[in-house]
């Protein structure tokens, strides 16, 4: 579990994060969504320590990460896996060497054990045949899967994914989403995804934090979104006429099937999730 308590971050005069608090739960896919410039990337970079926060506390399973020095952070970081937007694979290494790199650096087993673990991870992401290829020889979707394999090779407790679907076709995006969701449940990982992709939001969003102008605007699940009356959230999620109609149809469907009350038992109809101004 990762807790953010009143996180603030600014660059020069511009305040990017204006006191954000949230809890990213274990065994769930936690999404950070929001329009460009809303502060979600900065928030994720603060969470992994690539950017230092100006104020506030970040806790990993109760340990104050933001108050640690580099040496103490190293121990936490070895439990973190991260999938980058551009995959961030090492160009001069093959797919297999990329996945083996964290094991070579931190692993203790024999070369044979490491090779076996790499083969397992590549098989898990369906890339066993690409082991000897270089990143320049594989497609964008395959690169993302290699990135996932590298991120999970050390059995991380926390998995961060920065825009895992960017630049991918809808089918490949769905495969990546399914893979991340399966891994999260399989290993009880605390997964945090920073995304713009509405398919990901609706399919994988066990817990969603919607950011607006550096603040947490809304928090809830993918089911809550359908019933939310938060105007800013609705404008962001259901931006097109097609999606607005789809939302209404879904609401009607749930209402007529009698599931309306069940789906909205946490809140009154039309007020899904937690709103925070």
């Amino acid at each position, binding site marked *: 579990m990762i807790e953010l308590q009143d996180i603030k971050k600014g660059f020069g005069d511009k305040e990017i994060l204006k006191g954000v608090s949230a809890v990213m739960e274990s065994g769930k896919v936690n999404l950070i969504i929001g329009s460009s410039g809303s502060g979600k990337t900065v928030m994720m970079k603060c969470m*992994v*320590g*690539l950017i230092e926060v100006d104020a506030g506390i970040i806790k990993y399973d109760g340990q104050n990460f933001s108050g640690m020095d*580099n*040496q103490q*952070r*190293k*121990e*936490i*970081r*070895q439990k*973190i896996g*991260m999938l*980058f*937007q*551009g995959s*961030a*694979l*090492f*160009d001069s290494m093959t797919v297999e060497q990329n996945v083996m*790199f*964290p094991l*070579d*650096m*931190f692993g203790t087993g024999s070369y044979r054990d490491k090779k076996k673990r790499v083969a397992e991870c590549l098989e898990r992401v369906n890339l066993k045949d690409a082991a000897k290829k270089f990143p320049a020889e594989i497609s964008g979707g395959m690169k993302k899967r290699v990135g996932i394999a590298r991120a999970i090779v050390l059995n991380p407790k926390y998995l*961060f994914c920065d825009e895992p679907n960017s630049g991918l076709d809808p089918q490949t995006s769905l495969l990546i989403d399914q893979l991340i969701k399966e891994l999260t449940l399989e290993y009880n990982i605390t997964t945090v995804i920073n995304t713009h992709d509405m398919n990901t939001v609706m399919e994988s969003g066990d817990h969603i934090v919607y950011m607006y102008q550096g603040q947490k605007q809304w928090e809830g699940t993918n089911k809550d979104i359908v019933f939310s009356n938060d105007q800013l959230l609705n404008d962001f999620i259901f931006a097109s006429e097609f999606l607005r109609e789809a939302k209404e149809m879904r609401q009607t469907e749930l209402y007529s099937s009698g599931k309306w009350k069940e789906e909205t038992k946490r809140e009154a109809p039309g007020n899904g999730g937690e709103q925070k101004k």
Partner: protein
Amino acid sequence: MEFKFFYHFGNYLLMLKGMFSRPENMKMYWKQFMQQCVDIGVGSFGIVFIISLFMGGVTTLQTAYQLVSPVIPKSTIAQVVRDTIILEFAPTLTSIVLAGVVGSKIASELGNMRVSEQIDALEIMGINTKGYLILPKILAGILMVPVLVCISGFLGVWGGKEAGVLSGIISADQFLMGLRQEFRAYNVFFALSKSFFFGLIITSVSAYYGYNVRGGALEIGKASTTAVVVSCVLILFMDYALTAILL
């Protein structure tokens, strides 16, 4: 253009300080160091070979052109060529060329790693990126640049001899006799001292500009150019300072 000397100098020193921490895995650091030795040493050998031969040849021809007095023995040409090459040409000229070859490679490699988030990926794994990426390059530089300068010195003198013999200016015996006259081993020490500092400048300055790239492909190109220019200027400053101090 904004001149931020103290900003860059301070950041440069912080970068050097940040390199020193306990390696996560000594074997991986050693592998990286050996790889850099090969890249810098073997990778630059071709260009060092060519410039050294021609540098020696041209020095012989120009010295002979200026020493036209019948009272000066021809072996003096070899003495002048030897000292010019050992004291100045081999360490300084070779280092200027290496600043272009090695410096731009280091700056663009690290710049590309920064822009494509490879450095961030290493950071998140818990690796000290300055220690893993920069320190082996600097150590390889301060080891391999003096080695290349030594090779350059030998090749320069050999090129000078061949040019003198082929053009009929001086015989091989006269040249070899001149090489042995009034030879001072201190000059070799001086050349190696200079090349040690030049190796440090080339690798650390280039690594600094590459590691701190922000932006995209255009910025990588700019960082690479700036790294080469700053390295060359610092080499010339250091050349003057060391000459004034050590000679």
